[in-house]
């Protein structure tokens, strides 16, 4: 078995650009997913029964349908519904974000409901508004408790950005495939890509663990 890393060195600028796209897709889809998730989580917890059922349907649908299906549908089918085409990057970010949002929403809801009811009652008794109580009393405690789960979701977002390769978003996996196909060096290319993803995800996982161990006591009540 001969190993030749020349193709990686030769196509380095191409792959470096792909890595930047992976980071961009991860950051944007995480931002979108967390924005959707926090909103949906709060509305499901405090927004009353009808909102809970409607948003619960969204959350459970995303938990039931594979990300690949969401992405493929967003990129190929959605343009036919609205009548204009969207580029792969947008479809990828939106698909990833909507899918991730459901999982974030579940985490947020679990975190909020883990803070005991008495705390809300105490806040209301002190004359705070509901929103104020959520923002200043409940959410800070809940956020700390949610941190490990949200950290896993961040890592899942980075890993899932690779699935956007299926709709030809020019991210790391997609461009690795192109180079591997051109140079007939799948072993070197795919292994290198694997190590890059590991180098991205593993430190994030360990970092979040360490931060959480530091601040876990702040979330206990």
């Amino acid at each position: 078995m001969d190993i030749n890393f020349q193709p990686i060195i030769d196509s380095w600028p191409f792959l470096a650009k792909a890595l930047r796209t992976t980071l961009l897709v991860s950051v944007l889809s995480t931002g979108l997913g967390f924005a959707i998730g926090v909103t949906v989580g709060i509305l499901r917890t405090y927004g009353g029964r009808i909102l809970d059922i409607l948003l619960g349907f969204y959350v459970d649908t995303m938990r039931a349908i594979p990300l690949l299906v969401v992405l493929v549908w967003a990129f190929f089918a959605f343009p036919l519904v609205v009548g204009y085409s969207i580029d792969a990057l947008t479809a990828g970010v939106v698909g990833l974000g909507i899918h991730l949002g459901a999982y974030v929403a579940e985490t947020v809801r679990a975190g909020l409901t883990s803070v005991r009811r008495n705390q809300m009652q105490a806040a209301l008794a002190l004359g705070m508004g509901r929103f104020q109580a959520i923002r200043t009393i409940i959410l800070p405690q809940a956020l700390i408790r949610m941190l490990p789960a949200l950290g896993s979701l961040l890592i899942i977002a980075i890993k899932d950005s690779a699935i956007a390769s299926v709709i030809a978003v020019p991210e790391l996996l997609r461009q690795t495939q192109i180079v591997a196909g051109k140079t007939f060096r799948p072993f070197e290319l795919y292994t290198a890509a694997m190590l890059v993803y590991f180098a991205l995800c593993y430190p994030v996982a360990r970092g979040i663990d360490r931060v959480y161990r530091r601040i876990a006591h702040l979330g206990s009540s």
Partner: protein
Amino acid sequence: MKFEWSVVWSSLPRLLDGAWMTIWLTVATMAIAIPGGLLLALLRLSPLKLISGAATAFVEFFRATPLILQIYWVYYVLPAYFDVQMSQLSTAIVGLACNISAFNSETFRSGIVSIRQGQWNAGLALGMARWEVFLRIVLPQALMRVLPALASTWVSLFKDTSLVSIISVAELSYVSLQLRAETYRILEVLTAMAVLYWLMGYPQAKLVDYIHRRYKVAE
């Protein structure tokens, strides 16, 4: 734009074949990944540094890299460089099983270490051997505790089987993408695919919620 839904009805048998393959892949992978995960968990708890280190490396590696890339890797690298010839279906199951085993091992490990030391001591005091304490006292309790987490992994796995469409395993996504290319009825076929996944996945998601409520750990 006019939609032609008849194409969905005429290709329904193929879609259902695909759906069947999706279910089959999920069951087959889980059947390997439960013993596989348990084995990895035990290896990680081994007192021998070499064994526990190797198992830890395997688990961390598979958990920190994308499954879709793992599938590509198994598909392109194993046959070309290590002279392992496998059908696409076996490749898919190997890729999925390695990944899910890694996740299951963390689940099992957390379950096993969550059983208090006192239970071990009590078992040993009763004259049981270590493996007996493990099999008869610790493991049954650990399994009950990790049931909700296993159920969640089950649903993730069900969804992740769609990724083996990239190596042409004829499960629901692959069949649908093929039909899309054959019929050009993109919206109809892709919507049918999403609906079929929903019909299968939604009850599973609800069942997971039920299992979480029913078997929640309360100490």
